[in-house]
């Protein structure tokens, strides 16, 4: 059975958004309904899946109950999905799975986060509560620390450089300048940035600078998923979900040097190891790569019949809270071999004019990162790109890809502790 996305909408990611969460979701929902004149909320929508990350950030438990009745959906089945940064991709995959199981025909997926009610240091502290609070948290690194140690590991093993990281940042920030829903553009306008701007921005956790790091944003986004049976009732140009995949890795990144659960799973990647370095018990993914992305991607590729992702995908939206994650993702999602992600950066493969553009939305610091909405917002960008609606939706002709057919969406939570991949096709 085929599953379609028939509608997508969002409200700009920004900080602070002073509207209430339900008012933000209402804006995203209305934005989506602009293209769904036939939609009867009461008759057509069969269920809803909600995505928000943190009860601490929202100061509200079960906030989706507020959202659900606000949208006029009381009585309909619904629940909240929660898995850190992976929450929004998991919510989409939940909706997909229920439709595919034949339980529902038309399912709303809505995500939001308001992170602007606390100062940034407190926000980092609350987000870090998704790491092991007895082990990783007390030492004071928090996510900017954990991810930075993982990138230093990559720099040591593969030779990623600060300049590679800066190039990724420049690409993504500049992509965001076309996007009127993007936090970066709301804050900084449409001026382009350079590698020098990134390298001279404030150090957060070596090698990461403020311009290599995800935004703390408020915002909301929504998708409407449909069974093949009802999809055509709502649109002539559905976007099909042709592959999904989930994967996991250990809670603590430090445990990945010796995790028996991984040993032998990816022999080709285990073989990529500098001779001078002691080989750990589990050489892949170790601390240098994101194995959960690999597991998720492999099952999504299999389902969608993709053998060479670099050639067969037209663009990708990745979950890049820190720039090294994007370089690692190129490897773990099989765009290139392990350790060669930096080459794709240096050769411009993922630039907007390259063979496989990534982060046309701007990604997590470009479009922004209101956790529960982040990946749904990236899915909205994919939906508009695949339907060639960017000129209308963004007011920019230049930002529209020529004739795109197939895109990848990747999301994850923790330090790649949980991940999902979805393939969209028009």
């Amino acid at each position: 059975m085929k599953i379609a996305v028939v509608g997508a909408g969002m409200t700009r990611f920004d900080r602070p958004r002073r509207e209430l969460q339900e008012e933000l979701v209402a804006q995203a929902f209305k934005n989506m309904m602009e293209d769904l004149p036939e939609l009867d909320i009461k008759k057509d929508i069969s269920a809803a899946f909600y995505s928000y990350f943190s009860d601490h950030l929202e100061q509200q438990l079960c906030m989706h109950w507020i959202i659900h009745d606000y949208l006029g959906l009381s009585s309909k089945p619904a629940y909240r999905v929660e898995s850190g940064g992976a929450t929004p991709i998991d919510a989409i995959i939940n909706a997909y799975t229920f439709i595919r199981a034949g339980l529902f025909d038309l399912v709303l997926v809505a995500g939001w986060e308001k992170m602007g009610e606390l100062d940034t240091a407190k926000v980092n502290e609350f987000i870090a509560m998704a790491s092991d609070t007895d082990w990783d948290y007390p030492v004071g690194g928090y996510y900017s620390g954990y991810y930075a140690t993982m990138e230093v590991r990559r720099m040591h093993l593969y030779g990623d450089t600060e300049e590679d990281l800066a190039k990724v940042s420049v690409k993504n920030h500049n992509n965001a300048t076309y996007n009127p829903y993007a936090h970066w553009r709301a804050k900084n306008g449409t001026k382009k940035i350079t590698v020098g701007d990134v390298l001279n921005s404030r150090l957060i956790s070596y090698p990461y600078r403020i311009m290599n790091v995800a935004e703390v944003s408020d915002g909301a986004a929504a998708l409407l998923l449909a069974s093949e049976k009802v999809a055509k009732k709502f649109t002539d140009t559905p976007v099909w979900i042709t592959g999904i995949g989930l994967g996991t890795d250990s809670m603590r990144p430090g445990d990945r040097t010796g995790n028996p659960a991984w040993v032998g799973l990816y022999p080709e990647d285990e073989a990529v190891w500098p001779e001078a370095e002691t080989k750990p018990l589990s050489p892949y993914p170790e601390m240098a790569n994101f194995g959960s992305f690999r597991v998720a991607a492999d099952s999504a590729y299999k389902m969608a019949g993709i053998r060479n992702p670099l050639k067969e995908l037209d663009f990708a939206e990745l979950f890049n809270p820190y720039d090294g994650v994007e370089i690692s993702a190129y490897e773990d999602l099989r765009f290139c071999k392990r350790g060669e992600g930096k080459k794709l950066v240096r050769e411009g493969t993922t630039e907007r004019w390259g063979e496989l553009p990534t982060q046309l939305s701007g990604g997590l610091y470009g479009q922004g990162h209101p956790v529960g909405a982040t990946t749904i917002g990236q899915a909205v960008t994919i939906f508009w790109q695949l339907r060639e609606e960017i000129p209308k939706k963004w007011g920019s002709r230049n930002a529209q890809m020529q004739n795109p057919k197939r895109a990848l969406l990747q999301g994850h939570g923790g330090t790649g502790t949980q991940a999902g991949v979805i393939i969209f096709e028009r």
Partner: protein
Amino acid sequence: MVLEEKVEFDNSKLNKWKKWALKGDMGVKGYRIVEGAYGSRVDKIEKRRYMVVERPHGVVYQHSYGLLSRFYEGLLNKKLYGTKCPKCKLVYLPPRVHCWNPKCKLEETEWIEMPLEGEIVTYTIMAFAATPFLKDLPFILTYVKIGNSCTAVPLQLREVNPLNVHVGLKVKVKFVDKPKGDLMDIYVVPAEKPKPPKRSKEEEERLKKDLKIVEEWVKKHFPKEQ
């Protein structure tokens, strides 16, 4: 049957924090009215009035360290414990009470005393951190393999110039003077002369400048700590 009795305790600070938690009751402590933005697209914004209230929220958790309590009690006594699986012989620090090797089917591990030495798997120089750690900036966060543990534990590295830290550096584990029962009771220091990582002149100058900015920021915001 008595299921639990207090064997040893230090709650000298608890009352102060319990009062603080009661005070932080989510009640409104202040407000402001602001003129702010409304709308989905940044190029199509309208103005609206918003009322913003301040609502503090305080909590004190009574957290049990479970079967890992042996490790934390060890810290109080300045001893470092890990665990070892009797079946597959893997050594864990962080300790695991049940072996995670799928072959061992959650076999209960045995406690062993760990040597106070290890090697740096990776590191970062923290130049911005969450609230409790701001005054300590810049500090070095490392993942260290202690003894023959197969996993690495996050610890702060001290007594070294951040520019000289590198992967593979041999380190010694030290205890703070007054352990209180979390991972900050221990830290590591170099056990050998560091071999600074290769950096271009430009990278080195930039990093020096970064560290200076952080030090000045800390001086300005935490003058008493200096």
